[in-house]
């Protein structure tokens, strides 16, 4: 077992016991990145000098018996839509920000640094987090470590692939409609989207402000819990960040091994309907059977507004919010400014035309249309009414069950290029994930098996707001019975 095969929790123990050093762990990750990134392209930028310096600092602090943070010496990757003010770029995988340097760290990046993590670099994503495959990156697509002709999912494809391929034990991603959970499922790692407001969005480049959340990727449930612990909590700079008087941050690791009993699992019939790949269904149902053997009760429920209607709602609400959030990219204060314009408005129009990719343009135009005079009531306001119906679906479900389970994604990883011709085909990748963002509930994907072709399948678990501690314990119940985290993708040295 090499050092990059250790989970973050195992690495933490090894560091505390002096069996390895932060420098050794960092060097191992940097070597893996050097070897694998040319193929996988999980990282857009890596600052090896800064990473080594930070690792050395942590090693010195440890030797001097200074107090150390939760993530001391642990290498972490950060999705490139989170501001890092250390000289590394923050591009959002867009040409419009290709040369931009953030003037401040995101709250979560400050937390990583304060807890002693070693930030390795920035990972690839769909441009401005808009996409489900990382194919919308302006700088090339990331490849799935399990089959490099396939997508890693998106929009946090780079972070998911980095963890799956053992380039980093932990990574941060963001999830607006499934962008942590779906790539976690396609790459065979654990990914969690917290309750809206649990983790500060300060310094996360905004896509849809009522939906965006930052969350952890790890190979195990405990690793995801560790990274969530380091990043959760109130931040006065994000006014949607929940107060800790109202919602204190629990200790996510302390009770992780305690099963939840009794456990009622809601199984929505809509999550097992047309469009679900039969192999994926079989693997997910086998996972549900494991829970039944542990004494859990499966309860069939309905979430009548939370699949196709949720996709329709999402592609109105998210695009409307995005049309407003992305108005700031106008070539005035930062980002790319066109050089061939003939006046102010023309400067806006050309800078944005040249700087944004097609998917971003599509979504901005969709949102602008939905909000425009004459259409606002029929589209935007209508979508917000349906959002209330979706929220109610979950309130009613959680009155009858402790969590909801189903497949994270209707299929395993699809081939690169398969869904790029038809935007709608790509949008339907998120059919099981978007409702959680609209309803603000937390959700996680955990690996629960493979297809015959060796592609990972993810089990999605959703729970009520601010119950991440229980969600993690429920996830751990399954993981104890069926450890998938030991299996490595061929790219990272596993059996083909």
């Amino acid at each position: 077992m090499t050092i990059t095969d250790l989970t973050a929790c195992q690495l933490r123990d090894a560091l505390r016991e002096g069996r390895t050093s932060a420098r050794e762990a960092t060097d191992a990750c940097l070597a893996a990145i050097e070897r694998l990134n040319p193929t996988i392209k999980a990282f857009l930028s890596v600052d090896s000098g800064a990473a080594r310096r930070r690792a050395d600092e942590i090693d010195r602090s440890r030797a001097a018996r200074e107090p150390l943070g939760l993530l001391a010496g642990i290498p972490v990757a950060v999705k490139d839509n989170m501001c890092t003010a250390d000289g590394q770029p923050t591009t959002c995988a867009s040409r419009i920000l290709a040369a931009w340097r953030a003037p401040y760290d995101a709250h979560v990046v400050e937390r990583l640094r304060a807890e002693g993590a070693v930030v390795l670099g920035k990972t690839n994503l769909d441009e401005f987090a808009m996409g489900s495959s990382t194919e919308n990156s302006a700088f090339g697509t990331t490849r799935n470590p399990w089959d490099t002709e396939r997508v890693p999912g998106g929009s946090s494809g780079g972070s998911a692939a980095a963890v799956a391929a053992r380039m980093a034990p932990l990574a941060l991603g963001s999830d607006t409609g499934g962008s942590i959970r779906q790539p976690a499922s396609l790459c065979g790692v654990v990914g969690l989207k917290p309750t809206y407001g649990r983790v500060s969005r300060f310094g996360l480049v905004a896509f849809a402000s009522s939906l965006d959340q930052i969350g952890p990727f790890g190979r195990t449930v405990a690793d995801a819990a560790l990274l969530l612990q380091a990043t959760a909590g109130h931040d006065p700079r994000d006014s949607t960040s929940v107060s800790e008087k109202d919602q204190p941050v629990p200790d996510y690791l302390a009770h992780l091994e305690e099963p939840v009993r009794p456990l009622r699992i809601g199984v929505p019939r809509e999550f097992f309907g047309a469009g679900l790949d039969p192999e994926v269904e079989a693997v997910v149902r086998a996972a549900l059977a494991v829970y039944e053997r542990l004494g859990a009760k499966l309860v069939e429920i309905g979430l009548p507004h939370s699949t196709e209607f949720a996709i329709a709602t999402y592609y109105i609400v998210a695009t409307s919010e995005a049309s407003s959030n992305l108005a700031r990219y106008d070539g005035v204060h930062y980002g790319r400014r066109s050089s061939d314009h003939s006046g102010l408005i023309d400067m806006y129009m050309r800078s944005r035309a040249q700087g944004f990719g097609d998917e971003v343009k599509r979504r901005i135009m969709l949102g602008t249309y939905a909000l425009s005079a004459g259409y606002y009531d029929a589209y935007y306001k209508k979508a917000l009414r349906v959002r209330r119906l979706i929220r109610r679906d979950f309130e009613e479900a959680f009155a009858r069950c402790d969590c909801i389970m189903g497949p994270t994604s209707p299929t395993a990883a699809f081939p690169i290029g398969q869904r790029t011709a038809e935007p709608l085909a790509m949008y339907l990748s998120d059919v099981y994930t978007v409702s959680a963002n609209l309803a603000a509930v937390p959700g996680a994907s955990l690996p629960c098996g493979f297809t015959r072709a060796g592609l990972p399948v993810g089990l999605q678990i959703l729970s009520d707001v601010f119950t991440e501690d229980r969600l993690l314990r429920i996830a751990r119940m399954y993981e104890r019975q069926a450890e998938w985290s030991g299996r490595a993708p061929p790219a990272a040295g596993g059996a083909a």
Partner: protein
Amino acid sequence: MALSREEVLKVATLSRIRLADGDVERFAGQLSAILDYVDKLRRLDTDRVEPLAHALPIQNVLRPDEPRPGLAPDLALGGAPDRAGDFFKVPRVLDEDAGA
């Protein structure tokens, strides 16, 4: 819901995105297909359902009206495509002919 060429150009202008001539048809087709899909929301009776902008109750957050340091000028201007001293330089905003 088929968007005409004119409607697409109008939306593009509102979005401040210059579309190349050859792209207008392609975007018109794609946007029309998506709008057709989202039209399914009409099937739902929402006459007695209030819009929900945020799924969890949130309040506006205020702080005392006391000045605090903001972003230092050099940091704020650090990404400026064109800078003149402490100013962002931009093309003329007002027409010479426009009244004061």
